[in-house]
């Protein structure tokens, strides 16, 4: 029935219509398409009673497809009313009768003419009707127009006539009932009217014709079409944002400065805004804010403030006091620290002694403790008396004594002496301890070293012994002692004691000697002072040791000294020569011991205290001076020696160097010191260079260049080593003669050539390849490598671009203050606490210059240009896509 000319309809129109339907369902957000759809929907026969439609058409400005644009824009034409009316009707209908179920609508929406053909019969008929109606309308329209032209009266006058016609048809409508109005119904209505037969004929003809119904499109195709439509739509949506996004992307900095005023959020502010909510809080507030409390608080505060008043003087005093205390504490602490660190044995020994003394003082105060101490001491003494542990009774002591103390080394002797002393201390009679201890205490008071105290004791002992020895024991001539046997016995006894005393003396001497071995000089002195009698062996050893020492020193000197000690130099030339040979590091190494030695020499005589530059220097130098002057002509000799040596080191003539700079120390060292004495030295030292030297100097150039070339070659070879010569693999192809005949395998030769070429390339690439007189090291400094970038940073693809981009320093030291901030600004500027909102649409001129200094994304006050609709539109797109 239907499908009069569905094929002829342009596809696009159908598409638009269908899309429009969808739009209408969603209450027509997008203007144009939706409205057009409305109108078309209106043209569908079955939906509107014909009469109504006619009336509407009569009201409408132009029935033909006319100005879509006008309507789209919702302009102020007369059609406006009509539009509104139309809008209303389909909605109502949709509400009333359920003819428009969802499925149907879908088919309408996106289908082409084919879907039209697929439609229900009624709708098709409607279409036909529409055609007819259109024809009629056209006729009427024409008629009206002609009338209008001829009479010049307004259109409404003629329309009225038409309206009057309508009631003729209207009454039929209720008779038709709910079913769809067919063309036959309509035909019946106009039966007997002129033109009816003609119409019927046409209808019949049409009905007779075979109906051509297009098969519905495949689902895939349909969906493709749908998607393409959606795509078009969404593209339009998205492209709108493009410029905006581009602008933001290109901006060096984005600002999010919304909510600039974040409000007060200090604790105080929050507290001030606090309002009590629950019971407890309310109660608390009541109490807190009660007048009494407030009053009390106020008063109290005042009182406290009054109390706070302090005198400035007091404060200062207090501060001073505190500072003093602090400094005292600090000092004490430092002292304690220092003392704690001391490792000296002597010091600790003294400390112990002090402690003991303090303890003894304690004992005086505290009888209990004293008693205990006394008990302990007594016990010790008793033990000693019983065991004689310290009286050379041990196996070790016996052995040593047997071998003789003279042969022993110092340590052993000292140990033996110490043991004996301990024994003496412990076995001393209690009564005699008093005076002895006092004397020992005295001595220990002013002595620093324990060794020395020991020595003192020994000395005293010796003196006593000597006194005993020296005393002629007067034998009482009367009484029992005068008896002859008594006399004999006495003599014997005397002899025995004498012998004993002598032994003891010897022991003493030995121990003394050992004690003072360090500084032999004093030792000798002391011996001289104390000993009226001298004992052979003792003296001998003394001399021997001192001699030995001297010899040693001399040796050391000659070994170590190089340029300073002229005497030594004169003495042993051999050593000097040796020095000449191995000058390099040996000299440096020797330097220090030599120095030490010097110091020890001088410092033995003088105080070895902390070195104040002037004094020590002077003293040292004075002594030196004398020494040197005594050796008159030594200096020149040394000089020549040194010259030789230096010549050996550096192949250039040393003398030349010397005359060039006054710094070469061979002369300076000698001329040095006490300006007055040696001023003229510098001038005397100048020598006219010998002929040989002059020649060498004149031809120095050639030599230098050759040398340099050699050096360069060495460096090159080191940094780019030459490839190895190809060698036969041992045992490979050698036992037949083939290998020899063939020569090396080709791959080996090739490899070698490759390596050679590579080396040459490398050499050519060197920076100093073309500079004959320069060697530039190609060594890679591993420590400096950490300062270089390992590889190109991300966005960069070219090394040059990267390196150029970092050429400018961006710090405040290198840029004017006005540009520093811009140079160092981060990509996004945002205050903490600012909420970043989704982007808002904003009209952007795509051709505007992008060097606007600030790119504000989010303003404190929303941008007036921003459109709220954007979000909505996005939603529609999304929904479309879903469909």
């Amino acid at each position, binding site marked *: 029935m239907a499908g009069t000319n569905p094929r002829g309809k342009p596809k696009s129109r159908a598409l638009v219509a269908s899309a429009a339907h969808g739009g209408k369902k969603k209450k027509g957000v997008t203007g144009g398409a939706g409205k057009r759809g409305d109108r078309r929907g209106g043209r569908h026969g079955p939906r509107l009673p014909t009469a109504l439609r006619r009336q509407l058409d009569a009201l409408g400005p132009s029935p033909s497809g006319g100005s879509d644009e006008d309507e789209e824009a919702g302009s102020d034409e007369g059609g406006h009313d009509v539009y509104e009316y139309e809008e209303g009707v389909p909605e109502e209908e949709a509400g009333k009768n359920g003819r428009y179920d969802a499925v149907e609508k879908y088919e309408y929406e996106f289908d082409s003419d084919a879907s039209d053909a697929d439609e229900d019969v009624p709708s098709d008929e409607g279409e036909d009707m529409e055609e007819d109606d259109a024809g009629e309308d056209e006729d009427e329209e024409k008629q009206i127009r002609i009338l209008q032209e001829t009479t010049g009266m307004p259109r409404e006058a003629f329309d009225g006539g038409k309206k009057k016609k309508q009631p003729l048809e209207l009454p039929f409508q209720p008779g038709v009932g709910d079913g769809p109005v067919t063309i036959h119904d309509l035909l019946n209505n106009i039966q007997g009217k002129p033109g009816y037969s003609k119409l019927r004929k046409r209808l019949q003809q049409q009905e007779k014709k075979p109906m051509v119904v297009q098969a519905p499109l495949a689902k895939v195709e349909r969906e493709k079409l749908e998607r393409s439509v959606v795509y078009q739509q969404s593209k339009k949506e998205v492209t709108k944002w493009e410029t905006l996004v581009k602008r933001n992307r290109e901006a*060096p900095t984005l600002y999010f400065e919304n909510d600039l005023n974040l409000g007060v959020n200090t604790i105080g502010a929050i507290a001030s805004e606090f309002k009590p909510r629950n019971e407890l809080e309310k109660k608390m507030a009541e109490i807190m804010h009660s007048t009494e409390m407030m009053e009390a608080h106020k008063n109290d505060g005042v009182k406290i403030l009054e109390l706070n008043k302090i005198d400035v003087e007091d404060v200062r005093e207090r501060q001073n006091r505190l500072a003093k205390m602090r400094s005292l504490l600090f000092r004490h602490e430092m002292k304690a620290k220092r003392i704690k660190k001391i490792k000296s044995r002597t010091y600790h020994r003294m400390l112990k002694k002090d402690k003991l003394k303090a303890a003894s003082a304690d004992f005086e105060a505290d009888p209990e403790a004293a008693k205990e101490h006394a008990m302990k001491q007594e016990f010790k003494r008793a033990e000693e008396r019983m065991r004689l542990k310290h009286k050379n009774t041990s196996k070790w002591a016996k052995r040593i004594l047997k071998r003789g103390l003279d042969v022993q080394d110092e340590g052993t002797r000292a140990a033996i002496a110490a043991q004996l002393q301990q024994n003496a201390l412990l076995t001393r009679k209690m009564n005699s301890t008093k005076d002895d201890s006092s004397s020992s205490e005295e001595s220990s008071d002013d002595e620093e070293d324990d060794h020395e105290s020991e020595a003192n004791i020994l000395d005293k002992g010796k003196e006593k012994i000597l006194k005993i020895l020296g005393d002629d024991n007067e034998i009482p001539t009367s009484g029992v002692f005068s008896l002859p046997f008594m006399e004999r016995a006495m003599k014997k006894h005397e002899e025995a004691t004498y012998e004993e005393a002598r032994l003891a003396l010897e022991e003493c001497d030995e121990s003394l000697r050992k004690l003072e071995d360090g500084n032999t000089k004093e030792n000798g002195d002391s011996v001289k002072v104390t000993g009226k009698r001298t004992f052979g062996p003792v003296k001998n050893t003394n001399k021997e040791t001192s001699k030995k020492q001297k010899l040693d020193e001399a040796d050391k000197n000659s070994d170590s000294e190089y340029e300073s000690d002229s005497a030594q130099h004169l003495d042993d030339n051999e050593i000097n020569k040796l020095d000449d040979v191995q000058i390099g*590091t040996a000299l440096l190494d020797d*330097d*220090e011991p030599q*120095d030490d030695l010097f110091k020890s020499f001088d410092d033995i005589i003088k105080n070895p205290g902390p070195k104040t*530059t002037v004094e020590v*220097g*002077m003293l040292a130098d004075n002594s030196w001076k004398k020494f040197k002057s005594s050796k008159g002509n030594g200096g020149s000799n040394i000089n020549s020696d040194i010259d030789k040596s*230096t010549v050996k*080191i*550096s192949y*250039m003539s040393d003398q*030349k*160097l010397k005359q*060039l*700079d*006054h710094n070469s120390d061979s002369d*300076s*060292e000698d001329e*040095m010191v006490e300006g007055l004495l040696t001023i003229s030295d510098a001038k005397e030292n100048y020598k006219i260079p010998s002929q040989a030297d002059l020649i060498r*100097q004149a031809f*120095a150039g050639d030599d*230098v260049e050759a040398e340099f070339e050699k*050096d360069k070659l060495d*460096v090159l070879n080191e940094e780019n*080593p030459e490839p190895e010569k190809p060698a036969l693999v041992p045992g490979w192809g050698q036992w037949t003669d083939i290998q020899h005949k063939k020569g090396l395998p080709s*791959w*080996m030769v090739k*490899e070698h050539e*490759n390596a050679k070429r590579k080396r040459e390339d490398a050499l050519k690439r060197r920076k100093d390849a073309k*500079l004959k*007189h*320069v*060697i530039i*090291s190609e060594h*890679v*400094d591993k*420590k*400096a490598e*950490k*300062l*270089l*970038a390992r*590889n*190109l940073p991300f*966005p*960069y*693809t070219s090394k040059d*671009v990267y*390196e*150029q*981009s*970092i*050429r*400018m320093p961006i710090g405040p030291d290198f*840029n*004017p203050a006005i*540009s520093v901030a*811009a*140079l160092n600004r981060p990509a996004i500027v945002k205050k903490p606490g600012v909420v970043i909102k989704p982007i808002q649409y904003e009209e952007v001129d795509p051709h505007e210059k992008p060097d606007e200094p600030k790119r504000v994304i989010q303003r404190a006050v929303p941008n007036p240009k921003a459109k709220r609709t954007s979000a909505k539109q996005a939603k529609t797109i999304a929904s479309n896509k879903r469909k």
Partner: protein
Amino acid sequence: MDSAKPAPEQKAMEGGEQEALDEMEKKVYKYSRGKAAYLGTLRDKKLKGQLAAREKLYGHSAKAAVQTEKWLLPTEGGYLEPDDEDLEKTYRYQQSSLVGEVDLSSSRKPFDMILPLLGPYTLGYTGNGRYMVVGGRKGHVAMMDMLNLELIKEFQVRETVRDVAFLHNEQLYAVAQKKYPYIYNRHGTEIHCLKEHGKSLKLQFLEKHFLLSSINSFGQLHYQDISTGEMVANYRTGLGRTDVMRVNPYNAVIGLGHAGGKVTMWKPTSVKPLVTMLCHSGPVTAIAFDRGGHLMATAGVDRKVKIWDLRKYEVINSYAARAQSLDFSQKGLLACSNGSQVEIFRDTGGQDYKIYMKHRMVKGYQIGKVLFRPYEDILGIGHSMGLSAILVPGSGEPNFDTFVDNPIETSKQRREKEVQSLLNKLQPETIMLNPNMIATVRPSRKKEKKTKKEIEEEMEDAVETAKSIEFKKKTKGRSKASKRAKKREEEVLKAKRPFLEQHKENDGRPDKKQRVGDEIELPKALQRFAKSRQ
């Protein structure tokens, strides 16, 4: 008339503007530190945009710097300029006549100090040029405030003094004495004795790195960090004794002049010299570096003074003159001393150094050291009979930046600067020939292959060690001679294996096994069964 006049005026104005613009452009170029990279080749649009924006900022910055320059650099240096180039010569101008011409404060600056007793003098200035330390060969050390011409401290060390050098400020200075260098403070108190340096002949202080470097009589170069006390480096130059040493102020590389006519350049992190140049055919007597770091002047016994371009390592100019001491001033004047005469050269454009001034000391005075005073038009001269200072117009930088050096700083400023400079201390690794290399991309380094010989040697060593392994004594026939031999053999093989593999890798020999099927094209029907090559 009215109409005629404005035209040339306008023209003149335009010309003036043009000139000003040109000058501005030149200055902008200076401040933009080279050109931007060509961005056309960049594919990444985003990066391109970013870089373009950056460049624009740089441009703004440079322009702003130029505009502020006239406020920050208010004074310009002057020179002695002859009225008539042909007749008048600036080097004929004597000091005595010069002193009368200059302003009062400048006329007070030159002096002659005759100190005949304590030998040839050497001197050093602080970075800001305010203080001077002098060292007499025979132990006289003195420090002076040159602004007020006050003696701050003077003392006698009673030892040879070979060189003096200020450390980062006037509070400390180092003196190379008979055996060791010592560090004294401004009151003359000995603070340190640097024994490790040995008998040093010359001292140089690297300000930015806080390194004190010295060369001693054995040709050993020492670097010591004076802020931590750490000995940073100690290298043997192996080129004999020398006392010709200077630091390049641009990159803190130390230049040494040697007896063989060589000049070597050193940094603390390299055992070998960075650059070795053959500069003279006789021993090098003096060396000096320009402030910009690209010029070096050397003097040798071969009666030549040469000026070098350190970017190309080529001689720019060579003059026949003797010089015992050389120094570049801040503005690029070059002073050479020869006997009792000082000559000062000036760049007349295109690095053509012409004699600018001459000064002759009293006959017989041997000049030991010449040194320009920073920020002043003064040349300090240390000679055998004391010290002198002469006026050299146009030698010093007329404008000082108080963030860099302040000749009139207060003690508080000095303290702050000390802290600041300690915070900004550069590590010794940062010393390199081209300091702009920092942060650039490291040049790709090929992994160096070991040569066959080396591999063989290593293998032999490994085999030896494997052979010498002592086995445990085991019972039940497990340590029979045969078993042991077997074990040993196994060990040796195990030791050899990695080296053999290496050997194979290194061999250029083509692989013997040829893969079958790779080259052969299968019939189409069978192709689908072939393994896909991927």
